[in-house]
Structure formats: structure tokens, C-alpha cells
């Protein structure tokens, strides 16, 4: 056998391996994109299931209020203390209310509300839909002439996109209030002056950009929960894995999307 004929299979094997790795990496992205496309197209074509949408709005939005509110309150308070002590190094303590408001509305309100939702909602969606998959409930839906994308996926996507901005408004308000409480009680700011300086400083875009971000984050949270749940397999272990993957992938995509959107909004 010649040297060339020996080398050819080795080179082919390498190409094959690289091809397999590339396909392995691209396939999940393609599958997720197709899933998202089917989910979004189900949103815009009948039949719609308003009762399902209301259930999801209540489950995703209303029942997330306590955890989002608490997180925002503590974060606003901690942020106020940090900025006050840090600002003191260059005599900038007095800008603490403005920095807290800016940090909460542009960044921490949307991101923390989304992360709380990723932990509470994305995992719950993945577990519920995953359990439906493994107990043949999704097959049953199809045999009952009901498209699972219209009945299960679309209402969750719509509910998360609608409710996360509302939760972010709550998080913004409570976060700023947390800063105000620390500023007034511990740091001896004038209560009225604190509120006035915050209101004068904030621009509508500071809040608006955060709300746009939170709508995108809501989509990510619901999409990851639905995608991993819908494709769950392997019984209880598979459902657990789907829930974990939903939370982890939601969190990573939230941070990535946050960076991209912040970059986009910083260079209008």
C-alpha cells in the first residue's frame, strides 16, 4: 500500500470528525430556532386559547411578584450602600440616588427580574411540559385535534413577554424605594430631595430601554422552558435534566442578550 493511500483515510477521518463536531454544535441551535419560529407563528394564527393565556399570565406574572419584589428591595438597598461608600472616595456621595435609579432601571431591575423568573418559571415550565411529554399528554393533545404549539407553547411565550416588563416596573419601583429607605434612614438624605433628584435625573429612555430588555428576557425564559420541556425524554431523570437545562440556558442567554442590547442601546 502506498503512503498516499494510507494518508487519505486518516485525512478523511479528520474531516469527518470536524464535520461531525460542527454539525453537533449547530444542530441544537437550528432546532431551537425552528422551535422558536413555530412558537411565534402559533402566536399569530388561530385557534387561540385565551383561557390558557390568562392562566399563564397569572402563573408567570402574578405569582412571581413576591420573589421579584423582595429581590429588588434588597438589591436597591445594597446598591445604595455600595454607591454611597464608593462615591465617598471622591466626594460623590450626593449622586447616590441618581446612580441607584440608573442602575436599577437600566440594568438590575430587568436582569434580576428575569433571573428570578428563570429560576422560578423556566424550570417550572420545563418540568410541566416535560412531564406532559413523558406521560403522553402531548401525544394526547395531538390526537384530540389540538396543536401543542398553539395550546402549550404560544400562551407561555406571550404571557412571559407581556408580564416580565410589568414585573420589571415593579422591580424598578421597589428597587428605587429600597435605595430611598437606606438613603433616608441610614445615610440621612432628605426624603423629598432624594425623590426629586431621582425623578429629575431619570429619562424615559432609562426606563424604556429596561422594559424592552425585559420583554426579550421574558421571551428567552419561556422559550428555554418550553424547548427543553418539549424535548424531554427518559422519565423523571429526563424531566429533571430539562428543568436544569432550562434554568442554566435561560441565565446564560439573559446575560448575553443583556450585553448585546446594552451595546445596541448605547450606540443609537
Amino acid at each position, binding site marked *: 500500500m502506498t503512503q498516499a493511500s494510507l494518508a487519505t483515510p486518516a485525512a478523511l477521518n479528520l474531516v469527518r470528525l470536524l464535520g461531525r463536531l460542527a454539525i453537533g454544535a449547530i444542530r441544537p441551535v437550528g432546532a431551537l430556532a425552528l422551535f422558536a419560529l413555530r412558537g411565534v407563528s402559533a402566536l399569530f394564527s388561530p385557534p387561540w386559547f385565551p383561557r390558557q393565556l390568562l392562566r399563564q399570565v397569572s402563573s408567570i406574572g402574578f405569582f412571581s411578584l413576591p420573589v421579584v419584589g423582595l429581590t429588588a428591595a434588597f438589591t436597591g438597598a445594597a446598591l445604595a450602600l455600595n454607591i454611597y461608600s464608593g462615591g465617598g472616595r471622591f466626594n460623590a456621595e450626593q449622586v447616590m440616588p441618581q446612580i441607584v435609579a440608573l442602575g436599577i432601571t437600566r440594568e438590575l431591575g430587568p436582569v434580576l427580574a428575569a433571573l428570578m423568573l428563570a429560576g422560578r418559571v423556566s424550570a417550572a415550565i420545563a418540568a410541566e411540559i416535560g412531564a406532559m411529554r413523558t406521560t403522553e399528554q402531548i401525544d394526547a393533545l*395531538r390526537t*384530540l385535534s389540538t396543536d401543542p404549539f398553539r395550546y402549550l407553547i404560544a400562551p407561555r411565550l406571550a404571557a412571559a413577554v407581556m408580564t416580565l416588563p410589568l414585573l420589571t416596573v415593579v422591580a424598578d419601583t421597589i428597587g428605587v424605594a429600597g435605595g430611598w429607605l437606606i438613603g433616608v434612614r441610614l445615610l440621612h438624605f432628605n426624603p423629598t430631595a432624594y425623590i426629586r433628584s431621582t425623578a429629575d435625573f431619570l429619562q424615559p429612555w432609562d426606563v424604556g430601554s429596561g422594559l424592552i430588555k425585559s420583554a426579550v428576557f421574558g421571551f428567552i425564559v419561556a422559550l428555554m422552558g418550553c424547548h427543553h420541556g418539549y424535548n424531554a425524554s427518559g422519565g423523571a431523570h429526563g424531566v429533571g435534566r430539562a428543568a436544569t437545562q432550562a434554568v442554566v440556558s435561560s441565565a446564560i442567554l439573559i446575560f448575553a442578550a443583556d450585553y448585546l442590547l446594552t451595546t445596541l442601546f448605547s450606540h443609537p
Partner: protein
Amino acid sequence: MTQMPKLEWKGVRKRFNGAPVLDSLDLSVPPGRSLVIIGGSGEGKSVTIKIALGLLPPDAGQVLLDGQDVVGLGERARRRLFSRVGVLFQGGALFDSLTVWENVAFRLINADGVPRKAAKARAIEALERVRLGAQVAALWPSELSGGMQKRVGLARAIVANPQILFFDEPTTGLDPITAAAIDDLIVEQVKQLGRTAVSITHDLSSARRIGDEIAMLHDGKIVWRGAAGDLDHTDNPYVRQFVARRADKIITSAA
């Protein structure tokens, strides 16, 4: 003149990870008849009906429902065609988040556009047909026993008066008395009302009770088909081994 089958598998092939599960399966069910498919675990019984229901795509072949190929149908055409189909799943597959009557009325409300009040009345009527009282209607599926869940699943399958019914292991996991009761309900709904039925099971007592005909699936093909009464008299070695419950010779255990 030969009668057109209600449902027909023609040359259906299906592989999983390269291993053939169905190998040019040819099988048909005449209208108004009850066919039971028997076979060992992992022989492809569930795959056979999942392909017929459009839940799995075949690698090759056709599935004809009233002469129309259901393979590759669009979602809308599929929804229209499957409005004539009712399915009882192995585990019941009841929706946990809905009450019993909402489960039974699911198709009526969500696919057929029946108002909730009228749908509830029809659901309660269907529950009574499977010997469940109206008081069960407001319960959650998790509050029911396994036998009751099967009955609710049966009520859900028959509530819209389908022309063809599929039963996936209808008596698995039930005690003999409850299993016999489920079989009687299936016979009542299928034979007396003249519906077509396809069941899969490895419970031979159940197969004898609910089937007009029995077909045995082995190595992806039908290796025997005959009247339910012939099951115990055939010379077919596969059937004889299955009936005798012997774990040797031709069929080896998949467990």
C-alpha cells in the same frame, strides 16, 4: 366487491438508531371490526399505532385512513381527519391541570368549538357511559384510581363519537376484575356501536375479549392473523409460544 379497509398500513418501515422495528408492515382493518395486535415487548406495537396516529413519521410506506394517506399531512388537514379518531392511551394521558370533565370535554371545547356548558353536559353523559357518576366530574385526575383514570380516558376517547378507536394497552397495570370491566366497556363501545377499533396489548385474556381478529407482530411483520377464537388452536409457532408463555425457542425475551 371487496370492502375498502377503514385503516391500512402499506409497506410501512421504521428504524430506530439503524435497527428495524417495522419491516414493510402490511395490515388492514375493515370498517366495524375490532383488530387486536399482540406481540412481545419492543416488537413495535406502540410504534404501529403511533405511526397510524401521525405521532411518528414512518421511514417508508403509507397509512391510509378511509383511503386517504395520512403520512405527511399538514397540521390543519391532520386535525380535520383526526376528528374522527379516539385514543385511549396506556397511562390514560389525562391532563393533570384540568378536572375530569374538562379532560373528557377537551376536544369538544378546544377543537370543535362546543360551548363549555354544553360540553360539560356531554362529558357527564360520556362518563355515565363508562359507569362513572357525575360526582367524579369535578375531581382532578390525581384523585382517581388507575382503573377510574382508564375509564375517564375511555370517556374522552368516545365523547365526540369517533368512527375509529385506538386502545394502547388498555388493561396494563390493572387488577383482573378492573381489567375485565374495562374490556367490557370497550366491547360495548366498539362492537355494539359498530365502530372500528385497533388495540395493542400483550394481555391475551383482554385480546380474546375485545378482538374480532388478532394479529401477531414479530420482527416488524405480521406473522399470524386470525379470528380471536383461533388464537388457542393455531399451529403458528410464534403464537403458540406466546400463548404458552414460554421464554425459549423462537421469540427471545426483550427484557
